[in-house]
């Protein structure tokens, strides 16, 4: 998988159902991030198949990677907001790259910002936001295109417990609306409280997959 021949993931076989809420746990370096990078085709597996919905990743050429990424919402630990754009513009950007009409953007963005509770901060820049607000902006950006799948890569990694819970509750709410959520986290309390499916990865292998799982390594 990497140039130095370290294998980050091997023999991983997973099936995630539509509308599921799945948590992936594993210590740092276990391969969680690699799994996510594979899902947004930032990396290509040396062997094996990835199929999301009806899309077989082997059949996607380079030019279509942007289109694939537009169908999967991703939220990162470090937010990855564009620093020169306001909250509104950051969210609108996700629609702009998809060629959505301006009128539609003006309608959709405030709605989604209301959903994540950021209406007040619409015209602030990321540097003026708290960590929780930044993450909610990132979630709004991921959601605004109505993806079928939302991937949240350690979304609470940089947040305090209070903000972490707000974010998790937001993810649960989104899941109730019918979006498949794939969450990776280190946070034991959150995993234990969720009472949802937990997949445990260790050293690049799936070691546990429980319907109602607990955090255990």
């Amino acid at each position, binding site marked *: 998988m990497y140039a130095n021949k370290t294998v980050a993931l091997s023999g991983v076989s997973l099936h995630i159902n539509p509308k599921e809420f799945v948590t992936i746990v594993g210590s740092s370096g276990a391969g969680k991030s690699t799994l996510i990078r594979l899902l*947004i085709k*930032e990396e290509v597996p040396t062997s094996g198949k990835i199929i999301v919905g009806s899309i077989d990743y082997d059949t996607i050429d*380079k*030019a279509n*990677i*942007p*289109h*694939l*990424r*537009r169908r999967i919402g*991703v939220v*990162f630990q470090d937010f*990855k*907001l*564009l*620093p*020169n754009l306001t909250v509104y513009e950051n969210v609108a*950007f*996700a629609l*702009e*790259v*998809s*060629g959505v*009409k*301006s009128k539609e953007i003006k309608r959709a963005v405030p709605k989604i910002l209301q959903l994540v509770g950021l209406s007040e901060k619409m015209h602030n820049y990321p540097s003026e936001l708290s960590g929780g607000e930044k993450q909610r902006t990132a979630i709004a*950006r991921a959601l605004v295109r109505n993806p079928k799948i939302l991937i949240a890569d350690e979304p609470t990694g940089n947040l305090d417990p209070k903000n972490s819970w707000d974010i998790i509750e937001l993810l649960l709410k989104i899941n109730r609306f019918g979006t498949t959520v794939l969450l990776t986290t280190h946070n034991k309390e959150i995993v234990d409280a969720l009472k949802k499916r937990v997949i445990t990865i260790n050293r690049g292998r799936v070691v546990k997959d429980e319907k109602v799982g607990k955090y255990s390594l």
Partner: protein
Amino acid sequence: MTTFLRIWRTGFKNIFRNAWLSTAATAIMVITILIMTFFAFSTIFVRTQLAQVRGKIDLSIFLSDDATQKQIQDLQTKINGINNVSAVTFVSKGDALKKLENSSAEGKKLAKSAEDIGNPLPASFEVKLVNIDSIGQINSTIRSLEEAKIITDTSFDNRDDNRRGVVENVISISNSVSKIGLILSVLFLIIALLIIFNTIRMAIFTRREEVEIMKLVGATKWFVRGPFLVEGTLYGVFGALISLAIIIPFTRAVSPFLTSKLGAGPTLDYFASHFFLLAGGMFAIGIFIGVVSSWLALIRYLKV
């Protein structure tokens, strides 16, 4: 269409949001354009000067006093028929004397004494050439003509005249000026490209994370590249505008000096009459440099 407008709008916005980098890039663009304009000016100046000198050079064919009217006419027709000869003017002994008389105060005295001893000045043809480079060749062609026996001497062969040396010098100087001019222009364009390329690359380097994020959010290459190309274009446009704003008043201010001390009048006239070409050239160079260097600078960040 929506996307096209968005790309332009984003490009515009970025310029104002990265004010410092935009200023730096535009400043370097201005300096580049100014240097290139100055350079074009000097090249054209040297060329017009040389063209004037070259225009003055012609080939004088001196004729024997014994030549008959018919012989002279035959020779004139023949010379006229030679390739690369643009005009042949006959200067009679009397014309030659008048010319000498009108040339200067010194010439007037000389003409007077020449007249006293019965006008020793020979009649001649003044042969104008299309291309001065072939003067030697034409000289020998004329010399080898059947009708050439009435020729006593030519300005090209006459060592005392020393014109041959001057002619050859002018030819070689103007040829090397053209060559050096071309080489330096290309060199300058490359240097300018490198400088601007580096500036824009720095601008992009500080924003590489942005490029990364745009790609993660699903932006196509063009959507990422577009605004940067717009920025490059605008640096070129602003650079050219500012350069013009500097050059026009500056040229106005120094043109009396240039005209009187350097005889650059024709060059200035040339620029005045080709103003739109010059301005267009500045914009073209600016935009070319801006777009090409943005494009090159982006390549490594756009790999998926």
